[in-house]
């Protein structure tokens, strides 16, 4: 087919609009709307004694001040626990506005609505809240000690506890010829999208309808949640995700308090209301992730093959658990990576702390699991004095063992079964690309100049494309324009391009004619959302199936028009033609005309479609079991997730005096099945690696012992610049997924996953001592060096 675009590095269709300032993000909407601002708790744990609004009431332009006492009906109930789980024994959620207690700095207490944001913020400053300050629980150690409780009803601070066993790992470790143990820790970080959250709501009093825009990763989820909270029929609520300036996980949570309160206020006041989050609000009142503490016992044979792996870890879930325990569930399962330990035991405890809540951030529990597994691999290699890649290779699941059932249940409730992957080939490619076998020569050359370098390696497997389903809609207009819609949202991934590529190929039309809408419940009301590297897999396949329906119908109608067998037809560049006889053809847009018999003519195409112009007069204009229009809708719902994988290697130099880590090379081998657009996949990898570098070397959430986040700004939170991000050398291996029609796997999160693991490996290689905590700053590394020297 001449128009083939699947697999081509086609430029992103959305970019001309986005890079020329034509994007329409949440704050670009509703300039005349009333503004909401929030008074947020300055304390990590406190009881609210009194809220005094006396001084605030006289401010001109103030519309309303709302506290918990003012909330009505279901708005006053706790926010939903979105993902319950049997292991989540003590799930707790907050209220839209704090009800007597605040449990983290940043929790919303008062909502102010005013003519504009300046006034609203001024009013917030004039409201006086008296607190009885309580002892906060900060950090995993304090949560475990449980001298104080985050929730009085959960005195041990334990929200969830889970033990999973495959074989008898403890007995296998005891009987193993060699055993070692490791204690590991990973610090908090956060998604930090360029655009924070935001909500804009319009209440139509006449029709009793609510239309809201949210900077969300799930417009269908927000719609359903808000309809439920406001006690509105679903049909009376529409939710649209406009251009969204990054999500990375934080915007999959819903409903955020503001997503309930802003529409509630809009209806109450019968005026449009808008709130857009500022940066400090995002730091203290959205969400973080990553903090986990792991203890590992491992037993292995003389070759380094793991006989028993026993992992016990603690997960800091913050003050509430609205998103359930997805993160530790993913950590506990995805920790295994490409390896097949003979037995495995994992126990986790999820703990409440008086800090902002914890929900998935790109990678979602995998970076911690991969860190644990890869540190273990390096420790085994060191113990046996074997090359680190060799130990890994000896533990790999082999290609002929696919599909491989690991005996666990994955986060989607389905068996953890890898569908495909070729780990030995990936490792061979990585070693070749990075020059693994020649590294010692490079090390000596640098050493001769007094420079210290190290190389690290880390592997991961990532479950992508989790269910339950997504849908796709494809419609051919009589102008030749192809409308495509899917319910999940876009936050910059390039969906407008890749979905158009799929449709262009399936339908045989120019990609320029394809227009994709995402995240608009008016266009496609059934959807789950954009998370877990699932959009291309789920919506991509659904859209492909819908396009195939359209193609079938088009060929059937064209076959009737051209009086030939549809099987002899093909569609090329928007023209349906007889294979081998291109003169016999009909434009797809004309087929669209034929598909929809009309009574009234409004243009030339419509004239051709009136019931007096088309059709077989012996049949009804729309035959039985058919619908008017050239369009199709279908859904894709997989039995289980599809597992992508990858391996990263990094070569670093560590400065002798400052212990600063410089990245010399960063190499990625990535296998996400068939690639729709290699440029977009590489872009996803680049962004992921940047966040991996950030999480390994720079970013952390500096909570002090009283639960104050001390670095809640981009002055102090070290998000790396482009200058800190290396040139990324990426190699693609394409092992198609057998699970879906397009053979694709997810790619969105991949790049970030092995970040901490690969840098720890490289730093350890350069310095010679164990690295057990990430991220690591130059001063921490310098201090480690000093203590190692002292102890030596």
């Amino acid at each position, binding site marked *: 087919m001449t128009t083939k675009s699947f697999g081509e590095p086609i430029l992103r269709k959305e970019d001309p609009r986005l890079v020329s300032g034509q994007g329409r993000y949440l704050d670009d909407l509703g300039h005349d709307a009333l503004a909401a601002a929030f008074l947020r708790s*300055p*304390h990590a744990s406190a009881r609210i004694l009194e809220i005094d609004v006396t001084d605030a009431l006289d401010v001109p332009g103030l519309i309303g001040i709302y506290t918990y006492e003012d909330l009505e009906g279901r708005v006053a109930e706790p926010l939903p626990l979105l993902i319950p789980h049997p292991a989540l024994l003590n799930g707790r959620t907050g209220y839209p506005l704090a009800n007597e207690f605040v449990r983290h*700095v940043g929790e919303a207490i008062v909502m102010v609505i005013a003519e504009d944001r300046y006034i609203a913020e001024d009013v917030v*400053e004039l409201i*006086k809240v008296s607190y009885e*300050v309580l002892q906060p629980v900060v950090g995993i150690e304090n949560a475990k000690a449980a001298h104080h409780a985050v929730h009085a009803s959960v005195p041990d601070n334990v929200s969830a506890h889970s033990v999973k066993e495959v074989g008898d790992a403890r007995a296998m470790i005891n009987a193993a010829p060699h055993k070692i143990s490791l204690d590991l820790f990973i610090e908090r970080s956060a998604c930090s999208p360029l655009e924070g959250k935001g909500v804009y709501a319009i209440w139509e009093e006449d029709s009793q309808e609510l239309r809201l825009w949210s900077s969300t990763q799930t417009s269908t989820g927000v719609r359903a949640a808000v309809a439920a909270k406001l006690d509105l029929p679903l049909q009376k609520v529409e939710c649209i995700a406009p251009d969204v300036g990054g999500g990375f996980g934080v915007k999959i949570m819903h409903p955020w308090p503001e997503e309930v309160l802003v529409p509630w206020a809009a209806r109450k006041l019968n005026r449009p209301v808008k709130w857009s989050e500022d940066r*400090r609000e995002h*730091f*203290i009142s959205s969400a973080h992730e990553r903090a986990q503490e792991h203890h590992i016992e491992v037993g292995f044979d003389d070759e380094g093959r793991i006989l028993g792996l026993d992992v016990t870890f603690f997960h800091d879930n913050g003050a509430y658990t609205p998103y359930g325990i997805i993160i530790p569930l993913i950590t506990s399962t995805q920790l295994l990576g490409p390896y097949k330990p003979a037995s495995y035991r994992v126990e986790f405890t999820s703990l409440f702390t008086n800090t902002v809540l914890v929900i998935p951030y790109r990678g979602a529990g995998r970076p911690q699991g991969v860190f644990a597994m890869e540190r273990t691999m390096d420790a085994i290699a060191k113990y046996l004095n074997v090359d680190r890649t060799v130990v890994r290779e000896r533990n790999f699941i082999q290609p002929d063992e696919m599909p491989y059932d690991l005996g666990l249940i994955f986060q989607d409730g389905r068996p953890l079964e890898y569908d495909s992957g070729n780990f030995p080939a990936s490792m061979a490619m990585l070693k070749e690309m990075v020059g693994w076998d020649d590294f010692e020569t490079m090390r000596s050359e640098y050493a001769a100049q007094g420079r210290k370098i190290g190389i690290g390696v880390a592997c991961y497997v990532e479950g992508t494309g989790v269910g339950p389903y997504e849908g796709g809609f494809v419609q051919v207009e009589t102008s030749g324009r192809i409308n495509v819609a899917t319910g999940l949202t876009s936050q910059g991934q390039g969906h407008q391009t890749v979905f158009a590529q799929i449709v262009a190929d399936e339908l045989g039309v120019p990609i320029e004619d394809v227009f994709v809408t995402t995240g608009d419940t008016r266009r496609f009301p059934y959807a789950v959302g954009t998370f877990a590297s699932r959009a291309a897999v789920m919506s991509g396949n659904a859209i492909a199936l819908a396009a195939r329906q359209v193609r079938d119908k088009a060929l059937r109608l064209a076959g009737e028009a051209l009086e030939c067998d549809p099987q002899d037809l093909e569609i090329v560049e928007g023209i349906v033609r007889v294979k081998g006889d291109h003169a016999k053809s009909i434009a797809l847009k004309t087929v669209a005309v034929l598909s929809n018999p009309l009574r009234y003519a409004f243009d030339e195409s419509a004239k051709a479609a009136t019931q007096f112009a088309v059709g077989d007069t012996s049949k009804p204009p729309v035959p039985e079991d058919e619908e008017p229009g050239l369009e199709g809708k279908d859904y894709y719902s997989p039995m289980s997730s599809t597992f992508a994988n990858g391996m990263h290697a990094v070569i670093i130099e560590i400065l002798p005096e400052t212990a600063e880590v410089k990245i010399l090379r960063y190499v990625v081998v990535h296998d996400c099945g068939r690639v729709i657009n290699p440029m977009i996949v590489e872009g996803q990898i680049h962004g992921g690696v940047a966040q991996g570098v950030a999480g390994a070397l720079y970013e952390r959430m500096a909570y*002090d012992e*009283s639960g*104050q*986040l*001390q*670095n*809640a*700004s981009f*002055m*102090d939170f070290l998000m790396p610049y482009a200058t800190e991000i290396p040139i990324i050398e990426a190699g693609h291996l394409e092992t198609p997924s057998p699970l879906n029609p397009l053979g694709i796997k997810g790619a969105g999160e991949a790049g970030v996953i092995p970040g901490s693991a690969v840098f720890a490996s490289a730093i350890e290689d350069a310095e010679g001592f164990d690295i057990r905590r990430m991220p690591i700053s130059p001063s921490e590394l310098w201090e480690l060096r000093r203590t190692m020297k002292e102890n030596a």
Partner: protein
Amino acid sequence: MKIIGSYSLDHSPSAVFAALNDPAVLLVTIPGCQALEQTGPSTYAMTITAGVASIKGTYNGVVELADQNAPHSFTLKASGSGGPGTVQADVKVTLAQSAEGCALTYEADAVVGGVIGGVGQRVLSGVSKKTASEFFAAVNRHLAGDRSTAAVVMQDEAGVVSIRKEATTQGATSLTSLFAGGAIALVGVLLGWLISR
């Protein structure tokens, strides 16, 4: 957050202790202090205009004095809140005789919240020490007879005493008697953290 510091003054510990317990002195020496009001036997409300970098605002604070052991030591328990944030602190102040006069040391254990806690934290420690030094220098000058700024005392019908700062060339009356048994001290160390000039 813990801050420990020291300052050397040219006057005896008892003179320094008295000054640090004299609200009128404090009012004119604490940078940014606008007003003081007695709210109980040993509690006072005060208003301070302060800021770190671009985060400025007016704070309303409550100060309570405890563990008085003249002229050796006392503890200041204070809390303040305003647009930019909240502060809660215990400050233990110790005075000792020295060759210069008085060696003063302070240990503050504070929780700084709100915007100031998240955004200004990086500079707080430095700013607080600088402000404390400014404050002690002002106390030192005051004890040496500098009266370029003085306080005005007001007592309303309910008997509530308040003091406001007013630049004057007139000498100011000591107000110690109005605060019998009470003393306000070193609020500058505390709320002064929030001051950058």
